[in-house]
């Protein structure tokens, strides 16, 4: 879906352990620039850690959000909490998509359908229904607050 798009071929390219998602046309031009001068091409999706594990970056959110299987919607007060890097508690849970399993990766939305970040479901949908208000429903992974919290090491 992401590779073959109506506006041309796109591809994932790894550069300095970062994975970038970019149109091939742009990539061709970017190749002319020396590697030590090149900072970023297209959109950064994530990076390989030193132990060669892939970690998604918050910058991939806008591409992944439409394809997310499991979603969580937050109430406005909890929205702010999540953007500061906190986990989501039952009290802040607005909606949750059906059939979310425990420890599934979820995309967190605000009630106005604004994608806010990634998380991991701490409980399944069924478990969420009878839960104490303060126990967490979703663990925080990445949120758009990082754009200002950690602009320095975004990449």
């Amino acid at each position, binding site marked *: 879906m992401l590779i073959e798009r109506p506006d041309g071929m796109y591809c994932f390219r790894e550069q300095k352990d970062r994975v970038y998602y970019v149109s091939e046309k742009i990539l061709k031009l970017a190749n*002319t620039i020396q590697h030590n001068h090149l900072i970023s091409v297209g959109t950064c999706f994530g990076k390989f850690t030193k132990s060669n594990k892939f970690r998604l970056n918050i*910058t991939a959110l806008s591409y992944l959000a439409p394809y997310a299987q499991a979603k969580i919607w937050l109430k406005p007060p909890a929205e702010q909490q999540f953007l500061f890097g906190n986990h989501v508690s039952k009290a802040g849970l607005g909606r949750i998509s059906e059939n979310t399993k425990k420890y599934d990766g979820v995309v967190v939305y605000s009630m106005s359908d604004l994608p806010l970040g990634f998380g991991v479901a701490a409980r399944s949908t069924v478990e969420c229904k009878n839960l104490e208000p303060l126990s967490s429903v979703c663990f925080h992974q990445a949120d758009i607050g990082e754009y200002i919290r950690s*602009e320095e090491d975004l990449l």
Partner: protein
Amino acid sequence: MGRKATFKEGTLKKKGPGRKSKKQKDPVFPKFLKETEEGVKKLSRRQKLRLQKGLKKKVESIAKRKITQDKNEQNQIIKGQSIKVKSQNIKPTKTSKKLIAKKQSHGFSDDNKTWLKPKSIKKSEISDDEDSTQMSADEDSTQMSDEEHSTQMSDDEDSTQMSDHEISSVNNSEDVENEESMINSEEDNSDEEVAKIRSLNDMSDDSDEDDEFVEKNDTVSDEDLLPIEKKNKLLKKKLAIEKKLADEELESNIESQEKFQFPDADSNEVLSLQDIQHRIREVISVLADFSKLRDLKHSRLDYMELLKQDLCTYYSYNDFLMERLMQLFPLFELLEFLEASEVQRPLTIRTNSLKTRRRDLAQALINRGVNLDPVGKWSKEGLVIYSAQVPMGATPEYLAGHYMIQGASSLLPVMALAPQENERILDLSSAPGGKASHIAALMKNTGVLFANDINKDRIRAVVGNFHRLGVTNSVITCMDGRKYPSTLKDFDRVLLDAPCSGTGVVTKDTSVKTSKDEQDVQRCYNLQRQLLLAAIDCVNAKSSTGGYIVYSTCSILPEENEWVIDYALKKRNVKLVSTGLDFGVEGFVNYRHHRFHRTMNLTKRFYPHKHNMDGFFVAKLKKWSNVIPQNHENKDDIEENANSDVE
């Protein structure tokens, strides 16, 4: 929900225990409001009175009536007069007027009798007219139509004989009420009785006033002055003389005050800021009319020097920058500029058209308690933030990349660049990515956008902003812009927002005031020249859609702007084209000893005091040939510049 106001007083007071009775009382109207209300009531009271009168009429004997008739006659006459005064344009009643006037001459009993006596009808008419015009100020509402008047006259004849008495008695007892009714009488003109009361009340006062008017009239018509009038004339003359003297004195005072004393060169007394400000104003006023107000001992140069010193202390600039500014602006504009540079510009944001629309964003922000407005007709994306309850840099909308915090002035170069879709565009010094992301938004994420900056730390901001705003067509590079042509060429458009001394954005960084000197500016414009030449070299003149370079700085010094453009015009095959911005001040063609290219008026300057945005300069160049004109002298010049440049 407000408490229901009871307009009827003294009705239905709840008594007894219970919560309702303990409740707060119903709101009462304040007294000044009450007056008018009572006035309305009063009218109804008058109607009551009328009824009573009617009853009394029946009760009282006819004999009594006869006795009072003589008195009433007199009253009626006077009343008739006052009514006549109110109605200027009554033709059919002219004869009656005459009659009444005749009666008047007999009926008057005050001390004006003596001179009123010989008055003929004609004169009384004149006086009437005079009166009516005078009275019209407060009585124009009471003027009645002819018919009404005549009917009223007849009504008066029969009905008021009694009522006059009644009302006069009322007058004695309830003065206050009458006064109120006076006020009301102006509003309500159809009520005859009110008119009557008026006539009664005003009888003593008005008649006197009327007489005075008549007096004035007399002086015009008869040239027959009364002793009082003569005295009055004398008094007026005296007053005029006194006034003349006072004026002269005042003038001499002003003159002595205005004469600005040039301070001694040796005196190093410490002045307060207010004194300095006062002196600045004085010196400027002297300089504005120099030949008249100058102190002969001192030349214009002395005055300018003094002014410069004062401005430097008052606004805390250094000598160099103040001198440049004084060369740049006329004095009055200079003060405006300095004042405007002390004030913060309003916060503006740019809607990211890649993710949202301005209307939606405005709605979302208003819901968060932000007070905003479109920045102006010239921009479809800008919004001005007047006040915000939340920090504008931390709202979820900001984090989701719906807008970018950006000065209004930084929208201009991108609009001048007018990027098209599917173009290859370069932003040579892009950090922090505001303008570059604007370009990407205008390109709708098509084509390729190269965003370059030399500073590795600042380039991170570009990366962050691009990802946040969803710019996907970008290649972010970090290298020296002067070496860009050797890496990549054939761009359709290039934006060069050159590093500058920042004299246009003193509000943002006040250290500019003192930190810049001649060398800094020189360094700046050398770098700018090289960058501009590099930018021009990057552009492909044969591009079907483009071949444009936009040069902009946030400096207002001509050295960094017009001079740099002029240099590029000489060195490369480029020409100036219109920026497409319909406001802003034209660039300098002549500045002091410089004679720039004659098309320099196509560049645009923006000032904080004129356009309420940061000081800014925008120039748009079109490259018409890829050939670099080779000239040995010029080449030496470039190398020289490169050597002199510190970086």
